[in-house]
């Protein structure tokens, strides 16, 4: 049976290719964990950088990234969830709806550096926010919108139409049905989408390069109009712009960023999994 042999060899080959795809992922995560873990201690996480960033900690970068992510959430969640409610519950198949879908597709594909240019043009220069947490957050928020809208819309659509019909039969208005029934049912899916969008924002460098990030600023920003250090940009700076940087600090920073992003990833998939199991329809 020659073709059986071909099949067997073919399957082995496919398995090997899958291994080639997966091994580097383990290698990247493994190398960063192994080389970075030695740098992680309370001082590294809780103090200001010293001696040209070669010593001390990365506190302002951590806080900066958390502030940017919070700002992104404040701007992107209401717009994104509202937009998703419109698309899932109100929009009919008109030219306008198709234009909205085309716009979301376009936003999802715009390169992150182009968001950076846009943010520089509109928020930093035109609206005169300057290089600031505010300008960076708004830039990241627009970049995050397509992720939040598409996952939230999918979550809303997965709520059965019967639920809405029953609400209407009891005399509820459309908005009452959405607020009291559809939104609570879709909430875990929506939250998953929000986390996925935010973790992407937290790890992005290009959009904040000219809108928010400071090269070296060893203090916590006191208002949204100040610029800030941020983890991804800090990693870029210490690995390309500062000669003689100890590898320990570089890998430690990479590890903190990776841990932040991957732990959010795990939270999102846990919520999704729990939700799927509990769902009774």
């Amino acid at each position, binding site marked *: 049976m020659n073709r059986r042999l071909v099949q067997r060899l073919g399957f082995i080959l496919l398995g090997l290719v*899958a291994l080639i*795809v997966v091994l580097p992922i383990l290698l*990247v995560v493994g190398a960063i964990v192994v080389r970075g873990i030695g740098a992680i201690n309370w001082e590294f996480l809780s103090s200001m950088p010293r001696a040209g960033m070669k010593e001390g900690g990365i506190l302002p970068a951590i806080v900066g990234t958390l502030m940017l992510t919070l700002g992104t959430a404040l701007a992107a969640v209401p717009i994104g969830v509202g937009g998703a409610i419109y698309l899932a519950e109100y929009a009919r198949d008109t030219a306008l709806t198709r*234009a909205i879908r*085309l716009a979301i597709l376009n936003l999802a594909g715009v*390169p992150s550096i182009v968001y950076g240019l846009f943010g520089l043009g509109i928020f930093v220069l035109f609206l005169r926010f300057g290089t600031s947490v505010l300008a960076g957050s708004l830039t990241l928020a627009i970049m995050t919108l397509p992720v939040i809208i598409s996952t939230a819309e999918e979550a809303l659509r997965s709520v059965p139409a019967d639920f809405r019909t029953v609400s209407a039969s009891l005399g509820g208005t459309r908005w009452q049905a959405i607020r009291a029934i559809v939104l609570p049912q879709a909430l875990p899916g929506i939250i998953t989408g929000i986390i996925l969008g935010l973790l992407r924002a937290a790890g992005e*460098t*290009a959009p904040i390069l000219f809108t928010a990030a400071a090269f070296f600023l060893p203090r916590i920003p006191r208002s949204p109009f100040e610029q800030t250090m941020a983890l991804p940009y800090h990693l870029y700076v210490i*690995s390309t712009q500062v000669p003689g940087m100890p590898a320990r600090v570089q890998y430690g920073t990479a590890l903190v960023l990776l841990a932040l992003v991957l732990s959010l990833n795990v939270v999102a998939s846990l919520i999704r999994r729990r939700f799927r199991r509990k769902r009774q329809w």
Partner: protein
Amino acid sequence: MRPRAGSMAAGALRPGEFLIETLIRVLGFSTVGFVLLIFLFLAREGIPAFFEVPASNLFGQRWYPTYGMFGTLPLLLGSILVTVFAVLIALPLGVATAVFVREVAPRWAREVLKPLIEVLAGIPSVVLGFFGMTLLAPFVREVLGAPTGLTAFTGALLLAYMSLPTMISVADDALDAVPRSYRDASLAMGATHWQTIWRVVVPAARSGVLTAVMLGMGRAIGETMAVMMVTGNAARLPRGLDALFRPVRTMTATIAAEMGEVARGSAHFHALFAIGIVLFVLTFLINLAAARSIFARRRRGGLR
């Protein structure tokens, strides 16, 4: 069409609800507004470049902004070189992995592979760039015996991996959409599982695979940080295939590296925005083409 609950109880619409529903409508349309704003502000800062810099200079072969030379050709070709090779590397890997996960792998292997690929999708590009600089580039240098590991090839390799999660998930969906009856018919005629995969299932999913390539390409051409950190950033015109093993400079890396130091309102500033316009239009066309092939597949009645 879902039942329109609101129309049944239209009389009961409260004033507060009218406000909320109007707000939701506005939020729904906002994405269109954002796309227009992006284009408007790119154009506002980028269009002046076409007046300040003569076309022969702008489309020339030298990018030396300090000497007033704004030839974007090396940057455009640099982006294309890196992207094309990234897709060439990622396509076989992506399709084979999707086929393995969907058609061949035992359940346990699937449960391991899928989350790992999700992890890859979640790793920030600057972290991958850092990995590329510190571990991949020295490896490439040793293997190739090149003077530097920071080459177009290193960038293409890294970009290929970065576009794999997108490619695998889209190709996986496409394979999933091939009806069970296709497989059953092929197996019933005596074909092996292997023959069924490559002669029936994958050809039936080809438009989806094309979509996967398009989306992977869109992701690769717009990628900034990782590419900037591993390609060596030399704005030289790539000539011939050996350019793959030399440093290059992409459009994205040029904007990222130079915008911070440029005087606002100068010709250089406007030229960088003009490159942004090119990137915006290019990725839009690529994504539009990808979306069209998705719609085309839905319209064809046979599948699903």
